[in-house]
């Protein structure tokens, strides 16, 4: 059954069968009403806002809310309408810079918030409309690259506009402050209520996300929402069916841009400073990762994706959380690969034995051992320090283990089943060795490595994303 191509007649015929074979957990989850699932998320967010006074966590919450807005917006463009917009983050930057220029000493303007925010948001919508005009001529990857260019034009223009010279003038003109960025922005001030606490932004954003969630959910069930999806699936057929493809695409593009621009103004007000490198490709890439990880075209997916891409990197800053994630993932992999519990135990015991053998071997050839206090970070190191032999030259041995591990995994993927059983404990040991010797001490790099590995593994396990539907795709 599994080797049937998605979309073939036999695959379609087995739809019911596949539903029936779903795991009970999945069925249970499907039975929970929609409002309850969403409600629980907002309830948690609400309780957190009520109970917590931790500035850092609130700031992470604000970052998360902004990220959710961005992934909602991009989800409309990419997930609903199927436009690969690689310049999306420029709208966010435009909103932020727009707010900054009208609320700082940079141009000496201090407009009231209730004027600036709607004004800039509408301006972003117009910009989105203008950019969508030429983009109508283009399809697929060609459209993607033109939107990428637009995004880059924005970044380069902001960078360069601190030094505009005219032939007739002696001095240069500075509009955007270029790479210096614009600090000292006014915080939001709504009719006398000054947003001087991060919590003010937290509540504001929570309301906005709630409204957006309901709105997008409603719209996606209307004519427009259905039109978006048909255009994504097959533009030609929808045109034949009387859908104005151009109008529908433009609408999606503008809707996405507007949300991003709005989010940008809030970001600028909250951060009270803007710098152009925050609106460049790295952020773009993270938003894409979020919506595709969650499942492109699914509102819940965009939310979950945003949560993963915001919360996980923050959690991984703490070595112990990284260690828990690493060891749980390792055990889980072994558990899944071994299929039988007895075999799993054999693997674990073999890893332990390899550890002792390694210790003996290293001592026999006279490698100097590192002091435990030099390498133990977090509780896993404490647990393992009498078992694991850590050589003094951790850099060299760590690099060696890194390359060995990669080669072992590569070899594992093409090896015969018998060899796989032999290889697995060695892979396990090398992974633990590498983790304790090198990775846990270098949290920031490891954090990125885990995120990278997670993207690859999750995509392979679930190409359609966590909440995505497997779809028939037409090239």
């Amino acid at each position, binding site marked *: 059954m599994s080797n049937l191509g998605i979309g073939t007649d036999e695959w379609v015929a087995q739809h019911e069968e596949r539903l029936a074979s779903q795991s009970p957990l999945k069925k249970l989850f499907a039975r929970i009403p929609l409002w309850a699932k969403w409600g629980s998320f907002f309830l948690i967010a609400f309780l957190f806002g009520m109970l917590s006074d931790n500035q850092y966590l609130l700031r992470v919450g604000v970052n998360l809310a902004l990220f959710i807005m961005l992934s909602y917006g991009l989800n409309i463009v990419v997930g609903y309408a199927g436009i690969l917009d690689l310049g999306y983050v420029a709208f966010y930057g435009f909103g932020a810079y727009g707010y900054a220029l009208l609320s700082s000493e940079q141009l000496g303007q201090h407009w009231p918030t209730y004027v600036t925010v709607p004004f800039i948001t509408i301006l972003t919508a117009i910009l989105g409309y203008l950019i969508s005009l030429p983009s109508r001529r283009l399809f697929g990857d060609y459209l993607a690259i033109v939107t990428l260019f637009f995004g880059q034009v924005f970044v380069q223009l902001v960078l360069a506009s601190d030094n505009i010279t005219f032939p007739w003038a002696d001095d240069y003109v500075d509009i955007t402050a270029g790479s210096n960025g614009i600090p000292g922005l006014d915080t939001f001030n709504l009719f006398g209520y000054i947003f001087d606490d991060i919590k003010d932004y937290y509540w504001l954003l929570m309301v906005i996300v709630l409204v957006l969630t309901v709105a997008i959910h409603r719209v996606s069930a209307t004519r427009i929402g259905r039109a978006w999806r048909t255009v994504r699936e097959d533009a030609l057929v929808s045109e034949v069916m009387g859908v104005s493809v151009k109008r529908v695409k433009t609408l999606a593009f503008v809707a996405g841009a507007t949300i991003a621009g709005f989010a940008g103004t809030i970001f600028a007000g909250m951060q009270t400073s803007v710098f152009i490198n925050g609106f460049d490709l790295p952020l773009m890439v993270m938003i894409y990762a979020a919506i595709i990880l969650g499942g492109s075209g699914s509102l819940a997916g965009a939310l979950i994706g945003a949560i993963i891409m915001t919360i996980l990197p923050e959690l991984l800053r703490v070595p112990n959380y990284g260690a828990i994630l690493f060891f749980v993932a390792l055990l889980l992999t072994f558990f899944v690969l071994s299929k039988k519990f007895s075999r799993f135990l054999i693997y674990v015991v073999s890893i332990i034995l390899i550890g002792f053998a390694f210790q003996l071997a290293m001592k026999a050839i006279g490698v100097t051992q590192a002091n435990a206090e030099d390498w133990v970070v977090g509780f896993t190191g404490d647990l393992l320090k009498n078992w694991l032999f850590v050589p003094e030259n951790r850099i060299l041995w760590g690099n060696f283990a890194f390359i060995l591990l990669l080669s072992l995994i590569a070899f594992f993927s093409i090896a015969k089943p018998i060899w796989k059983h032999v290889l697995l404990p060695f892979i396990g040991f090398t992974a633990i060795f590498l983790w304790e010797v090198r990775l846990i001490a270098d949290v920031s*790099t490891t954090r990125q490595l885990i995120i990278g590995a997670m993207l690859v593994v999750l995509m392979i396990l679930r190409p359609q994303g966590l909440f995505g539907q497997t779809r028939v795709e037409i090239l």
Partner: protein
Amino acid sequence: MKLFSKLSAIVASSALALTGLVAIATPAKAADCTGTVAIMAPLTGGVAFIGKEQSGFAQVAIADVNAKNGSKIEFKEYDTQLDAAQAATQAPNIVANKSVIGVVGPAGSQEVLAVGGLFGANDIAVVSPSATRTNLTAGTYPSFFRPIPNDGLQGPGNARYMVQTLKAKEVAVIEEKTAYGTGLAKEFLAEMKKLKVKATNFAVNEKNADYAAVVTRISKTADFVFVTFQDAAKSQQVAQELIKQKKKAVVFGSDGSDQPTFKTPGTYVSGFAPDVSGLAVAASAVAAYKAKTGATSITTFGPPAYVAAQVIAEAAVRACAAGKTGDRATVLAEIKKTKIKKTILGGPLEFTATGDVKGGRFYIFQTQKDGSRKSIG
């Protein structure tokens, strides 16, 4: 399953017991001097070379201070990727960590702008090894210090040296569009205007692939090309490209170019230290850094981070001696009183009231035929 859970329970409980035993065996000494130095730096991303080196040197400094005083000061890394938003997210995290007594970093001037206020309000000392923008020490951030002189000294200083000592008649400037490069180039150009020497500015993107096109554009009569790169390999490339295109202009690098990779004979470079890599005081720190991280060479970003961490850690030790272990306000007050006879940068260190180096100056070197540097001013 049962067997496994029993086994794991036994393992876990014995491990707990063991740690408990260890804790009882070594009772906490009253004189223990503890505290955490937070390191904010771009540890990953495009300029990871800056942050990794700053963090490595800061760690070496803390270890040195601990070894000397028997203190137990720790460090904790906070990756900001040179992004002000990430720095602003981590700042409250650092404030909430009660053991933090001071911050080494953040690396970029724009990050200081984003977090300086919060740290100031919480009495946390911020000692940045590389934020050189002049206006950061205008008094806005009461807890901000930097162990290196600022752009306001370097840009005009280099301009004056070029015109008055080297008799430059016409110069070109390659301004790299980063928070570091732009600020410095602006200071330099302003001084050139005062000195009434023709200076043509070429603002170039940090991610520019090839400098040949810009070099072709530099006038044949220009005497010097002042470059504000953070990566000396670029200065080296500009210098070589000038030779290749048979232009007479000589590269004059800012302190960002003060690295061994920039070694074309006859070029000039300014540095905030008499000479970092050649000094005997610095040698052990450099060696320790290389051993710790496996790095093969050092740039100008690392050694000031050593000094920054040293300043904080030593102030913390003095605070301990005064019976105020881990008290942020005391550490901050002690940092203000910093008096180091000879840092690894080669000179003495004291701070002005606004956090700049007292009597800070730049040194100018010329690269010799064998690639070594000779101090000329």
